[in-house]
């Protein structure tokens, strides 16, 4: 287990079914589980939460989605976030329909909006893990 101190963000400690997800994130993709009956789910489990099937495989998400809702955090809860405020804490609905908790980055926090199209980025390294985050689908670089 990583040895956290209070000034570091909480680092994931993958459980059995979560290991593949974090490995994929390290490789720059978001993967979702799909059971034999076709039910998609996030977060990963050893069973399908819809039908109980244990016959599960993975699909690779496109990484595109929409901001379902968000809040700009000005006051950190955990000490590991004190030097990161203000930051955009968000729920992103992937085009596959599953929702992820994440951050919207590479955007002025005042520009984040519900309904905004976003795409996954894999630039945030936390210990040995890469945290999938999202940036505006129309980035400043695209507009030049």
């Amino acid at each position, binding site marked *: 287990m990583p040895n956290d101190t209070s000034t570091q963000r909480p680092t994931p400690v993958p459980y059995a079914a979560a290991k593949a997800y974090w490995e994929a994130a390290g490789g720059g993709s978001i993967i979702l589980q799909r059971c034999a009956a076709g039910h998609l789910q996030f977060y990963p489990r050893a069973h399908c939460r819809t039908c109980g099937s244990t016959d599960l495989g993975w699909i690779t998400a496109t990484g595109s989605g929409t901001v379902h*809702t*968000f*809040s700009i955090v000005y*006051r950190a809860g*955990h000490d590991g976030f004190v030097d990161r405020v203000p930051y955009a*804490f968000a729920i992103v609905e992937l085009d596959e329909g599953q929702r992820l908790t994440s951050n919207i980055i590479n955007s002025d926090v005042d520009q984040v909006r*519900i309904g905004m199209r976003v795409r996954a980025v894999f630039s945030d390294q936390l210990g040995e893990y890469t*945290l999938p985050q999202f940036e505006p689908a129309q980035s400043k670089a695209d507009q030049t």
Partner: protein
Amino acid sequence: MSNWSGSVAVAGVYESPTRRDPNRHPFEIQAECVLGALANAGMSLPDVDGFATSAALEAEGAGPFSVIELAEWIGLRPTYFDSTDIGGASPISQIGHAAAAIHAGMAEVVVVSYAANSYSSSVRWGERTEDVEREGPGQFEVPYGRTIPSAFALAANRHMYEYGTTPEHLAQVAVTCRANAATNPDARYRSPITIDDVLTGPMIASPFHRLDCCVVTDSGGAVVVTTVERARDCPNQPARLLGFGESIHQQWLNQADSFVSSPGVTSGHRAFAQAGLSPTDIDVAQLYDANTFTPMIALEDLGFCQRGEAGEFVSSGAIARDGKIPINTDGGGLSSNHPGRRGIFTVVESVRQLRGRGPGAQVDNPEVALAHGFGGELSSCATVIMGV
């Protein structure tokens, strides 16, 4: 199912007047509350055969098996006990369970109590839990900087997006609670505030400014639940329990089906069904205010107004003392008291209202009161309806 509606009552209530109490262990506050509620019911420790507490965190003085440790501390050997932990709604949930247990003959006198020193505790509320959460499904959320206000803010922002709710609507809830607290001598804050005061305060997690968020206190409360027969002999007017409902949905925000409704739809429906009542029958409501948004979603979930209309509803004056449905008459968590699981005070204040002894804004002769709590971040709800 046998319906216990009307056969069980709250016979005693107590809210500690303390708000900042750095020198006492939370167990000392909780014992004060248990003894206070028993005295209010004209009872003493030997009368008690049931005990419930949701103490589970450091600020509650708690570790594993806390219901046992607190029973030991207080001096109880209960044969009915309940340590249900669904967050801030836990005490309401435990009161519902106690009513069913009393009706079933499992217990006769149950004390439900809660206390914490969240203001003075050296350990932040929820601190250290991240170390456990990051090993389970929380690993997909806590690394992104979830805070308690920001979790509720996700719902408030979505509600604003879908229904046009405004920061001014939210602020009105804080202003109303502060007005109610004005005459409550124990309230944490009593000076009147304006909508502008709320909106010009520092932002905590958009759209919540500081005054959109509840106070943090050291305090506690307790209620005594017993049969209506026994309650009749008590020195203070009992409040009959008429209906109860509870529901849990999800812990993690990425699992929420909706950010604009909550488990309160189900808990409220069940409570009204058991009581045989509807929202128009309620004279006064205590709606758990962890922030200015939770009472608004509760007004919609419980049917006091239509879905999406809570903003206009609160700004119309409907939630004021002389309005259609007065809420949080003691000042609520926003102005009076919030040591951690405010659910206990929603019941304490409901009973005080029915007795005509509300310390803040007393409603004129209420006959039916509703107490509604949330736990987690719109994760759980419990609702209880009481009558004279």
